[in-house]
């Protein structure tokens, strides 16, 4: 499926992007810009881990949908609850 070499490369990317997240924090950017960059990096890392380490990329798509449903439910709760405060 996937060579050990690719796994190692992905591991390196994850390692580096975690470092970048902290560097962004120290770079003194505008808060919401930094927020956006950091969250996008987190999401990208999560997708990499799920796709390759959990090999969802090579499984039937139904498993991806299954987890996505859980994710959508959690996001719906979070966003709707927060919106209700406005």
């Amino acid at each position: 499926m996937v060579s050990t070499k690719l796994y190692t490369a992905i591991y390196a990317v994850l390692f580096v992007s975690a470092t970048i997240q902290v560097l962004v924090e120290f770079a003194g950017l505008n808060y919401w810009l930094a927020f956006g960059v950091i969250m996008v990096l987190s999401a990208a890392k999560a997708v990499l881990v799920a796709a390759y380490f959990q090999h969802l990329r090579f499984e039937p798509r139904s498993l991806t949908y299954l987890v996505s449903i859980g994710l959508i439910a959690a996001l719906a709760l979070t966003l709707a609850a927060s919106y209700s405060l406005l």
Partner: protein
Amino acid sequence: MTDTNPERTDGGTVTDDHGHDFPGTGSIKRWFVTTNHKDVGILYIVTSLFFLVLGGVLAWLMRIQLLVPRGPGETILGPLAYNQAVSAHGLLMVFWFLSPFAFGFANYIVPLQMGAKDLAFPRLNALSYWLYLFSGILFGVSFFQGGTFSGGWTMYAPLSVPTFTPDVGASTAVLALVLFVASVTVSSVNFLTTMHRMRAEGLTLRSLPLFSWTILLTVWMMLFAFAALLAALLVLSSDRLLGTTYFAMESPAGALLWTHLFWFFGHPEVYIVFFPALGVMAEVFQTFTGRRIVGRKWFIIAMVLVAIQSFAVWMHHMFLTSINLQVKTLFMITTIGISLPFDLMVFALIYTMLKGKIRFTTPFLFVFGALLLFIIGGITGVFLGAVVLDYEFRGTYWVVAHFHYVMVGGVTALVGGLYYWFPKMTGRMYDEFLGKVHFAIYFVGFNLLYFPLFVAWETPRRVFDYAPELAPWHQLATVGGFVLGLSFLVMFYNLFKSAFVGDPAPDNPWEYAHTAEWAVPSPPPLENFDGTPTYRNGHLEVIEAGEIAPRRDRSDTPAGSSVSADGGIAASSKTAVSTELPTVESTAVEGPSHASIWPFVLSLGAFLVLLGLSPLQEAAFPSGMAGAAYATTAVGGGVVTLGSLVAMGLEPFHGPVFEEGEAWPFSGIDNGKVGMWIFLASDVVLFGGFIGAYVFTRFAFGWTGWEPIPSDPIPGLVNTYILLTSSFTVVLALVAAEKQHKGALVTSLGATFVLGIGFLVNKGLEWQHLFHEGIWLSTNVRSSTFFLTTGLHAAHVIAGLIIALYLTARAWRGAYLEDSRSVEYFGLYWHFVDIVWLFLFPLFYIL
């Protein structure tokens, strides 16, 4: 139940073609070790009926108190006792009676309807039952610890925190619910895997019987809804036991947070308890009108719509909170939307009756009665869905009357289901005359009890006093309560007597019943079918054991996917030995057995742990002997729990033999892997609830005014590095197992374990540092969210480390080289824990 029945064919060794040592139904031991779905179903039904009686007696106490309007303490119940009775009645009936009663039928009937020999993970099924029973016992214990929870079944904050409900019993009740949710989660994973993976050939979802359909949708809702409840309950437990301040008065929007978390679960819960009743209605209507349901496809589509929509209506329970008007309007619209598919279902049932020829048997009378009650309950609910009307009705007996018509209406259908399937379960017919007498008394009692509550709607809910002019209506209701309750005596007498001396029941006593459970003997043999059921030619056929491929004749080597899946870490090789417990090198043992004592022991252990933790306040045990006794109980329970987990992993166990069948949408994926992913999907919602609670609280607090608790992100970054590396070593472990490199496998697993320990040590140092600075869980809501969310994650790491240690030890002795699935499933879990951290790190350390 029916051990004296000579026709009984599932009495263990009699027809047991595997010759394993499985005690007969007459033996007490059988009921402690059984993993058979039909046994578990009967256990669920009997236990849930016990809780019906308990909840019913509490309701009687309330109705006696309400006979005349009187001030607090003027009669049998003191004010606090009344509040406890109200709260415990609601909790017991909704959680410990209604759903488990339905799941008794689900356990018994669904595998039969879909042509499976058992559920995918039989031991997990037994575990679900025992967790359920022990959670109920724990709830019972709470009455004796200074009094049980008294803040209403919705457990609204801040009444639910120790400031207002200080009794130890109140904490125990919350912990009992936690244990109950554990049972539900295990059960959901099991049913979903079974129903999606193990249907008979040709039995597509389209052709699945309607009762099974309702159960399928129910477990899907349960999987996600109960995960949200678990998040809510864990936070509440932490507020009560550890002293976090999520729901405290001084926390921003703490009370509102509870209502969001609770009702996100609570509204789907309405359909979770009602759908199985709907399924019974559909089955019984079809059988006793002699007609297939009108618009079957649309009926199913309507149910699917309701199941999805049920997650988008929860704020209609919150119209009187401070949420904004726009969101109220939005949820009023979605609420009206969800009533539409129900209209379709009700009309389909009515039209089925009109087109068919009705036979008024006891089951039909009950489900027909249920339909009438549900129509009344449904229409009165529409009033509550309108924002303006809810301003008036909220917190009154209108609500009480409405949801009793809906929920007890559902019970009515389930009672019909009990009569309907009784001949199948016992092999005996019930007494038809007494059944009809039961219905008559029940139906009169029901309406005498609940209808006056609509008339007396101005009575404030949950309050023991009311305006004197409403007294006649309350007196009628009290009389009705006794009539309804006593009607069950007729049922208990009828069913108990018939189970022993009723007329023997044929395979299909109902003539027009078409689902597969009626094609097998009453009661069905241990493995349900004498061969492999198939719908290849559009109808049920059973292919003899000898006619199919050699898969089945080697019953001691469970074929394919079902082997290891139970518990995820089972052995996987051939040579059958005895049922004795093997020692650690048991990779080579796969003894055939249907029996396991460990689900029982494991549940007992979990019960002891939670009981032991119940008196905690601010993370400290009470001083003196009592505190020491509780602490000992918790530790002892922990040892029992861990020990039985290991024993269960090592135990040779004979799961159901997996035949090729319908497996949409998970064909080509192992049962074990499907189960793991389904569990992870619910865990996503659990963490989603925690992270959602954090985001919500921070939003209410003022997002940018909220400083992260750790002043320095570097320890968090180091932990990110550690976890990422440990994920990488798990990947290497799987690669090594697939290449059959024992040394590399052991090294990688060992490295994962060491890295996990490193993560915990680093976290421990960081926490220690914060404690020294005087920052504790109860310091403020910022520190509460930080410690609890990262603490939940750490608990996941610890659970993972226990599994990693187990895997390392087994790998050391040569396991997993032939079959690497256990390593793979562990990896799925571990990577998930890693992913969660990838979000916790920025949210709690950087932003």
